[in-house]
C-alpha cells in the first residue's frame, strides 16, 4: 500500500526579506478593502431550510461534491498558471513564491466572515454564499498544489530540458510532453491532500452564522449541522454514512485510478516494487468504449489542440533563455513596484487609522485570546503526538498490524473533522468546560492524521539492517527507541506536525464560537474573537484579530517549525 508523505513546501530563506514585508503590506490592503465592503452587508440574513429527509441526502451530497469540483478545478488552473509563471520568469518567481508562502500560512477560516460579508454586498446572498464557499475551499486547496507544480518544473533534469531545446520544441510541446508529465505525480498526490482539506472547510462553511446573519447552503455539511442541532441521531448517522460513502466512492473511482495511471509518469528508470493497482482503472483500460473514445474523440481533439496552439505560437521555437544578470532595476520593474507600494501604503494608512480606534482593552483581550488558542493548539498537537507516534511506529514496522489497521485508519481519517464536530458538541456541550474540550478535540481530529501517516511512513523507511543491528546489540526497548526509532522518525514527525499545526489553527475559528441548539457558546480564544467581532460588526477588532492571528502563525512557522525542519533535514536524514 502506498503511503502518504506530506512534504511541507518551505522556502529556502530563513528570515523575512524586504519582499516579504511588501507582500504582507499588500495582503493587509486587500483585507482592509474586504472589511470596508463588509460594513455594508445586510443586517439579517436567513438561509434556506435544510431538510433532514433521507431522500434529500443524494442531492445534498451532489451539491457538496459540485462545490468541491468547482473549487478544485479553479485551484488546478491557478496552480498551473501561477506555478508556471513563477518557474519560467525569475523576476516573477522572486515575488510569487514568497507570496505563496505567506498565503499558505494564513488560517483560512478566519477569512470566511470577511469574504462572505463583502461578497453579499455586491452579489445576491445565495450566490454570494456559494461563491464564498468555493473561494474558501479554493484557498485551502491551491497553495500546496502550486508549490508542488513549481517545484516539479524547477527540478526537471537538465538533460531533458536540453533535449527539448535541441529538438526545438515549441512552448506548448514542451509543456505537454515534458513539464506537465514531469509534474503529474506530485500534482496528483497534492490534489488528494487538497481535496481532503477541502472537505474540512466545506463542512464548516455550509452553515455559517455571522451575528444575525445565517448563511446556509444545501449540502452534506449543513445537513449534519442541522441534524446535530435537532439532536436527530438517525439523521446524524445517515449523514455521516453518506459522507463516508461519497469519500470512498471518489477514492475508488477517481483517485486510485488516477494514481495507477500516473505511475507511467514516474521518472525513475527502474521497475521498482509493485506498481499501484486500481480495479477500476484496470477495467477502464480494457474496455471497448474507452478505446473507441480514445480513437474517435481524444486523438482528433488533441490533434486539433496541438494544431491550434501551433498556429498560435506561429512556429516560434523555444530557445533556452539567457537571463542577463544585470543588477540594475529597469523601468519595467520600478513602475509596477512603486504603484503597488503606493497602493499598499495607502491601505496601511487606512488600516492603521481603523486599528487606532480600537481601545486598549480590546488589544489586551486579543493577546489573551491568542495565548489561549496557542495553548489549545499546543495541547492538541501534544495529544496527537502521544498516540500517533507509538501507533504509527507499530503500524509502520509491523506488516501484520499494517495490513489490519491501515484500511481502517484510512477511512476514519477521510472523514473531515468538521463533519463530526456537531456530533461532538451534542455529546460534550452540557458538561463543564464542554466547549473547551470539544474545541481541543476538533483541533486534534483535524491534526492527528497528518502526524499518523507521516510517522507510519517514517517507521516503514527505517532500514532493515539497522533494525537487525539493534536486535543483535540486544538494546533494551528504551534504548532502541532512543537510538534508532525516534531519530529515524523525527523528520517525519516534524513534517507532519507542520501540516498538523496549520490544521489546528484553522480549526480554532469554528471551534471556539458555536451556535448550537439556538444558543451561542463561546470560550476564550482568537477564533472566538474573530467570530464575535464579525457578529457585532466590530470591524476594527475583526481586522486586528485576523491580522494578529496571521502574523502569529507566520511567525511560529518561520521561527520554530522551519528551524526544526532544517535540523531534521541535516541531522536525521536516512541517506
Amino acid at each position: 500500500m502506498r503511503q502518504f508523505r506530506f512534504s511541507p513546501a518551505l522556502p529556502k530563506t530563513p528570515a523575512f526579506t524586504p519582499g516579504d514585508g511588501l507582500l504582507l503590506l499588500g495582503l493587509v490592503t486587500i483585507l482592509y478593502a474586504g472589511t470596508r465592503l463588509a460594513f455594508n452587508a445586510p443586517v439579517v440574513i436567513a438561509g434556506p431550510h435544510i431538510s433532514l429527509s433521507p431522500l434529500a441526502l443524494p442531492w445534498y451530497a451532489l451539491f457538496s461534491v459540485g462545490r468541491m469540483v468547482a473549487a478544485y478545478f479553479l485551484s488546478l488552473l491557478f496552480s498551473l498558471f501561477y506555478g508556471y509563471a513563477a518557474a519560467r520568469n525569475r523576476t516573477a518567481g522572486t515575488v510569487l513564491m514568497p507570496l505563496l508562502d505567506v498565503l499558505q500560512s494564513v488560517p483560512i477560516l478566519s477569512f470566511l466572515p470577511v469574504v462572505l460579508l463583502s461578497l453579499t454586498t455586491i452579489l445576491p446572498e445565495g450566490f454570494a454564499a456559494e461563491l464564498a464557499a468555493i473561494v474558501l475551499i479554493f484557498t485551502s486547496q491551491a497553495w500546496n498544489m502550486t508549490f508542488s507544480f513549481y517545484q516539479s518544473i524547477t527540478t526537471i533534469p537538465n538533460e531533458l530540458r536540453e533535449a527539448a531545446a535541441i529538438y526545438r520544441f515549441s512552448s506548448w510541446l514542451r509543456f505537454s510532453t515534458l513539464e506537465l508529465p514531469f509534474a503529474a505525480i506530485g500534482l496528483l498526490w497534492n490534489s488528494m491532500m487538497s481535496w481532503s482539506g477541502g472537505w474540512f472547510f466545506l463542512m464548516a462553511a455550509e452553515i455559517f452564522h455571522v451575528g444575525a446573519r445565517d448563511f446556509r447552503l444545501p449540502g452534506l455539511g449543513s445537513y449534519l449541522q442541522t441534524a446535530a442541532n435537532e439532536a436527530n441521531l438517525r439523521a446524524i448517522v445517515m449523514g455521516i454514512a453518506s459522507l463516508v460513502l461519497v469519500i470512498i466512492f471518489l477514492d475508488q473511482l477517481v483517485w486510485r485510478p488516477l494514481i495507477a495511471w500516473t505511475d507511467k509518469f514516474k521518472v525513475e528508470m527502474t521497475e521498482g516494487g509493485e506498481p499501484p493497482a486500481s480495479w477500476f482503472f484496470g477495467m477502464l483500460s480494457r474496455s471497448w468504449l474507452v478505446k473507441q473514445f480514445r480513437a474517435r474523440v481524444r486523438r482528433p481533439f488533441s490533434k486539433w489542440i496541438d494544431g491550434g496552439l501551433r498556429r498560435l505560437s506561429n512556429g516560434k521555437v523555444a530557445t533556452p533563455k539567457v537571463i542577463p544578470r544585470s543588477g540594475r532595476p529597469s523601468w519595467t520593474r520600478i513602475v509596477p513596484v512603486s504603484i503597488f507600494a503606493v497602493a499598499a501604503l495607502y491601505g496601511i494608512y487606512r488600516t492603521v487609522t481603523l486599528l487606532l480606534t480600537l481601545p486598549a482593552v480590546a488589544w489586551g483581550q486579543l493577546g489573551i485570546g491568542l495565548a489561549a488558542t496557542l495553548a489549545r493548539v499546543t495541547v492538541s498537537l501534544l495529544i496527537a503526538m502521544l498516540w500517533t507516534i507509538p501507533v504509527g511506529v507499530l503500524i509502520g514496522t509491523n506488516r501484520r498490524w499494517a495490513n489490519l489497521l491501515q484500511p481502517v485508519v484510512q477511512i476514519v481519517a477521510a472523514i473531515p473533522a468538521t463533519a463530526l464536530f456537531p456530533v461532538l458538541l451534542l455529546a460534550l456541550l452540557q458538561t463543564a468546560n464542554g466547549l473547551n474540550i470539544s474545541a481541543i478535540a476538533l483541533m486534534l481530529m483535524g491534526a492527528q492524521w497528518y502526524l499518523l501517516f507521516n510517522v507510519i511512513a517514517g517507521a516503514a523507511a527505517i532500514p532493515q539492517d539497522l533494525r537487525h543491528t539493534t536486535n543483535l546489540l540486544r538494546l533494551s526497548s528504551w534504548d532502541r527507541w532512543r537510538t534508532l526509532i525516534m531519530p529515524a522518525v523525527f523528520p517525519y514527525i516534524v513534517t507532519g506536525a507542520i501540516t498538523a499545526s496549520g490544521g489546528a489553527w484553522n480549526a480554532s475559528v469554528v471551534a471556539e464560537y458555536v451556535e448550537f441548539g439556538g444558543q451561542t457558546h463561546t470560550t476564550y480564544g482568537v477564533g472566538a474573537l474573530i467570530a464575535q467581532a464579525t457578529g457585532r460588526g466590530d470591524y476594527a477588532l475583526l481586522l486586528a484579530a485576523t491580522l494578529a492571528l496571521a502574523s502569529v502563525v507566520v511567525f511560529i512557522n518561520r521561527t520554530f517549525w522551519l528551524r526544526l525542519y532544517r535540523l531534521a533535514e541535516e541531522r536525521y536524514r536516512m541517506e
Partner: protein
Amino acid sequence: MTAPASLNHDDNLLQLQNVTKAYGREAKRFIAMRDVNLSLRRGEFVCLVGPSGCGKSTLLRIATGLNPATSGAVLYRGQALNGVNPYATIVFQTFALFPWLTVQENVEIALKARRVPPAERTMRALKLIDTVGLNGFESAYPRELSGGMRQKIGFARAMAMEPELLCLDEPFSALDVLSAEALRGELMELWLSKSIPTQAILMVTHNIEEAILMADRIVVMGKNPGRIVANIAVNLRHPRHRKDSAFQTMVDKVYTAVAGETKSEKETLGTAPGQPGEKRMLPDVRLEALAGLLERLSEENGRFDLYRMGGELTLELDDLLPIVEAGELLGFLTVHAGDLLLSTPGQAYAEASILARKEIIAGRVLRLPVIAWIYKTLRSDDNKRVARDYFYDKLQDDFGDLTEKLLDIAIRWGRQAELFAYNSDTGELFLES
C-alpha cells in the same frame, strides 16, 4: 545525401573563434573556458578529451547553441550562430528520453517538433527503430529496456533530425562495457559507410581508448581555466584494434598530453587566501586512494607509465587524474612525459606505518596554502575554535560556487592529518589539545 555544394572554398562546418565562457559578475567572475579555437571540417570525427572540469561538455553545448558563449564567435557554415543550432543535435550521457513516452513516441517527438505530418512521422520513426535494431520494442517504455537499448533510442531520435552535425556527450559512459562496445561498432559502421546524412561528429569522452578507436582527431583540453592544450590527429586505418602497437603508442601519446607535466611548486600550489595570485582548488580525493597509488608506484620502483597504471588499477581517466593531482599537490609524485615518478617523501610515505603516515601527511598537507591558512587562523584564535562560516565567507571571493566543496575537502584532509577537528553540529573547526 546532401550534395557537397560548398566545396568551393570552405568546408569548415563549425568554427569556434576565441570562445570564452565565464559565470558570475566582476569580482565573483569565474572563467570556465578561455580563448578556445576549434574548427570542424565536413567528414571529420573529432573527440574532446580532458580532465573533469575542463569544460568539454560546456564546449559541446556552445557548439550546439544550447549555451551562449560569453565572448568570441561561434560560426556554423560561416554564419554566426544565434540560438539553438538547427543542423545539430546531441546524444546525451543519460539518454534524456521521456520516461512517459514509448520507444516509438520518443523517436516521433523529434519529428513532431519539426511539424512532420503524422503518417510520415510514424513511417520514419519505425524505419529508424528498425535501423538501430529495436523493432519489436516500439510500444515499450524506456524503463523496460537495458541501458544499451535506451541509448539506441537516443541515437534513433537524434537520427530522426537528420543532423549535419552530431554531438555526442559521453554517450557510452553510462553503459556496461559490452553494450558500449557493440554500440560503438554500430555507430562506426553507419558513419564510415556514410549511410547517415551526418557530415561531422563531435564527441566528448573521458575514455581515451574510445577516442582513439573512433576519432580522426583528438582535441585535448586542460583546466583552470578550460582551454585546448593539444590537437592530435589519429591516422590509423579502420577498423582499429586496441592491441596494435601503433594504437598503444597513440594511447600513450594522448595520456601524456592529458596528464600534462607537473609544474613548478609555486604554480602547483597557488597562493593563500587573501594573497594576490592564482588560487588552486583541491581535488576531491580520499587520501586512502592516494596511498594506494603510491604503494603501487613504490612496487614499480618509483616510476610507472600513467596509462598502464590506469589500466592496472581499472581506473578511468576521470578517476585517476584527481588522485595524481593530489599527489602532485602534496609533493608525493610528479608527472613527466606520461610517467608517474615517486618523490622521496612519496617513497617514505609508501613505506611508513599507519602512525608514521599521519605525521608525514600532517607535514605535507600544511604545504597547501588553504589548509595552512585555516590552521594558522585556528591557532591564533583565543579559543582555538572558529566557525566554518567564517572560512566560507573569506574563501568565497576566490572560489565562488566551489567554496562549499573546497571546505569539505579541506576539512576532510585536515581531519585525516589530525591537524584540526570539526563538529558538524555546531559548524565549528577547532584544534584538539
